[in-house]
């Protein structure tokens, strides 16, 4: 295969991953690494390096659109970024030491768990308004967001240590596997800290970029980031996610999400099988 054809195919694949990732809200990273390793036969270390770069691009590229909606909380994000960035450094440190077979198996397990989360999210519980912990206001984490009737709706948060612990885990996964781990970040805010869902998802988007930046320097120095891969993957995923975000309202999201859930599940099983048989 010529370099030009390889680059074009890689760009097309990354575009599709970015598009699907934006449309389903699951991010492009989770399908990108399986795509690179299983289809393009790229070593998993190069794959997670290229994926992490695309994660930073998507998070930053979507930022302006998210800001306009007025949901995100810079304080909740910044406070929890202490946990995610330290986790990301730890994860990147692990990634340079763990055997690639083990990396592939962990990746497969994360994919299967993502599929489970995605399936579960279709049954999203109605948020209940409740009083948060006294630390919510002391740490200035209480805030407000535009409610459905246009009036600002106040919220408080609870269980900050629990949320921070889970955020450390999200950061570790991000640094270990080169993914955004947005689903875990949303879970930590939405389920554990009882941050409203919309605030959780938009704040998570900003956190993804900062978290990924913490491990990207380590990846770069370790030689995980190859320019020949980073070029088509970064631009492909970025274009795909920007187009996907634009058509989000028009698309049949529930059908797409169902298909995507099965795809992720299948990829997860294949990653584990390939990892176990040392075929990657």
């Amino acid at each position, binding site marked *: *295969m010529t*370099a*030009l*054809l*390889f*680059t074009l195919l890689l760009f097309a694949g990354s575009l599709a991953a970015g598009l699907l990732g934006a449309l389903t809200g699951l991010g492009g990273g989770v399908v990108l690494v399986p795509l690179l390793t299983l289809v393009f*036969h*790229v*070593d998993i*270390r*190069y794959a997670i390096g290229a994926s992490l*770069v695309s994660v*930073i*691009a998507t*998070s*930053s*590229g979507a*930022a*302006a659109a*998210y*800001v*306009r909606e*007025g949901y*995100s909380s*810079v*304080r909740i994000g*910044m406070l929890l*970024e*202490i946990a995610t*960035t*330290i986790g*990301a*450094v730890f994860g990147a440190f692990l990634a340079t030491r763990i055997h690639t077979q083990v990396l592939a198996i962990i990746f497969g397990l994360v994919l299967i768990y993502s599929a489970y989360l995605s399936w579960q999210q279709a049954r999203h519980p109605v948020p209940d308004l409740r009083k948060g912990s006294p630390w919510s206001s002391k*740490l*200035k984490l209480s805030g407000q967001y535009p409610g459905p009737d246009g009036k600002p709706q106040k919220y408080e948060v609870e269980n900050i240590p629990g949320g921070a612990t889970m955020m450390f885990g999200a950061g570790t996964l991000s640094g270990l596997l080169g993914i955004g781990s947005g689903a875990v970040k949303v879970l930590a805010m939405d389920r554990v800290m009882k941050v409203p869902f919309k605030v959780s998802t938009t704040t998570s988007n*900003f956190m993804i*970029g*900062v978290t*990924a*930046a*913490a*491990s*990207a*320097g*380590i990846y*770069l*120095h*370790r*030689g995980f*980031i*190859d*320019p*020949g*891969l*980073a*070029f*088509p993957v*970064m*631009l492909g995923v*970025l274009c795909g996610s920007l187009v996907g975000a634009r058509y989000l309202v028009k698309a049949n999201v529930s059908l797409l999400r169902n298909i995507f859930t099965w795809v992720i599940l299948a990829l997860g099983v294949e990653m584990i099988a390939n990892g176990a048989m040392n075929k990657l």
Partner: protein
Amino acid sequence: MRKAPVDGTQVKRFGDPQMEVMMGRLLQVGVLLASAVVLIGGVLYLHAQHGSAPNYRSFSSEPAKLRQLRDMGHGLASGDPATIIQLGVLLLIATPVARVAFALVAFAIERDKLYVAVSLTVLAVLLLSFFRSQ
């Protein structure tokens, strides 16, 4: 000692919403700039690369000019396409870091000591992870 206001007009307080809008713009500009550099480097890279695609099946790290800051300077000076792509990647990595630095300044303007400390911690982790690994 109390500072006198600069002028008599009502100064709009610099609050979180303005800060978020500016940070959103900052990220957008950063990612655009990084993408442009990566695209230029990528086109030059493809132009210089004749024949078959490199083998990515086995991992063999990257040469120093694509991994280390001080060696990247030499690569850029000689116009090496792969190094130009890595420069774009570096710009991309710097984008969220710049956002944290901007938030730090904004919190300082708001005199929010707690969040100045929080932003400083995040910034320290980011910078340490980058420069300690170099």
